């Protein structure tokens, strides 16, 4: 893990370059701040547009409507970004968390055992409520991920127990469902991400649920910081990915 810089790298005296950077940045910031101040303070955004089309979106919450319907393409790519992060992290190294625990106080253990199921429930609630209030896949997923991380640091190593294939499927569930729905819409109603009006609500909840699950899993996987054992076919246990590179 990362350590703090050794003492010899700490700066003792003031570097003139740093002073220069400081004043330069201060100047630029002041300029930007001035621009913000002279900009029109009351400028309508897209709230009227959103309000006008909200009834066609299939959900009652404007933020969810923007996220999943009006700007659903953004969200699709965003889900891909998370997926990509897992890909990138897995490509770098093996998970280092496996096996390591250390002392866990019984209080923490008991607490987490109690808390985790509750957090799952909260996550599910958040996803469901996303269609009419604040909340949604990301909030739900974040809580789910939090629960997962809590369990991992409390000697409840559930992640290594998940076999490679189901884990992959779980991670890809959100992207797959989202992309399938988007393409399904293409065939059903003739446009990419054009939800059929009568099925919109259902499809959105479906996407949200799948994404929340994947996001939770993704966050936990990112926390572990590497691919699980068994992800590569010929990988030796504890190869560790270290050693001299050969290209």
């Amino acid at each position, binding site marked *: 893990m990362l350590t703090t810089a050794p003492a010899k790298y700490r700066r003792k005296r003031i570097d003139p370059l740093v002073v220069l950077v400081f004043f330069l940045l201060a100047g630029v910031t002041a300029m930007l701040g001035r621009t913000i101040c002279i900009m029109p303070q009351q400028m309508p*955004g897209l709230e009227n547009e959103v309000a006008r089309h909200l009834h066609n979106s299939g959900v009652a919450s404007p933020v969810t409507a923007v996220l999943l319907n009006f700007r659903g393409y953004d969200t699709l790519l965003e889900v891909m970004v998370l997926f990509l992060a897992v890909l990138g992290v897995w490509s770098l190294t093996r998970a280092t968390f496996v096996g390591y625990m250390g002392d866990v106080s019984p209080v923490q253990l008991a607490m987490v055992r109690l808390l985790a199921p509750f957090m799952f429930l909260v996550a599910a609630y958040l996803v469901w409520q996303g269609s009419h209030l604040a909340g949604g896949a990301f909030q739900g997923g974040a809580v789910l991920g939090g629960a997962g991380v809590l369990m991992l640091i409390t000697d409840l190593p559930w992640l290594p127990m998940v076999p490679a294939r189901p884990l992959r499927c779980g991670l890809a569930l959100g992207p797959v469902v989202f992309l399938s729905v988007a393409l399904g819409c293409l065939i059903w109603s003739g446009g990419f991400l054009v939800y059929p009006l009568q099925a919109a609500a259902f499809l959105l909840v479906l996407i949200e649920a799948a994404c929340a699950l994947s996001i939770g899993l993704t966050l936990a996987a990112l926390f572990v910081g590497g691919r699980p054992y068994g992800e590569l076919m010929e990988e030796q246990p504890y190869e560790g990915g270290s050693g001299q590179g050969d290209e």
Partner: protein
Amino acid sequence: MMSTNLLYSLTGLVLFALGLYALIVCSHLLRKILASNIMSSGVFLMLVSTAYRAGNGKIDPVPHAMVLTGIVVSVSATALALVLACRVQETSNVTLVREEYQHDTSGA
């Protein structure tokens, strides 16, 4: 009189500038990553402050959605950066980004 939205905007700007300063000045990787996170927080604060400024009490949901997306993107980048930083420390025992390490002169 300074409106709320302006206050948030300026705070966000200052956060951005602080992060940028740290990103340039600090040489430790972890600090750099943290600095970039502070920068992104600053940008998100500015972005979300634009949601409430129509003057008619209505709230613009689009910045909310954008901030959500932005946070997710930032989380992903940060995760990758952290793991990469760990790898860098593991393989070459470097926590500082400095000139000497940028060229692998051996060629092998």
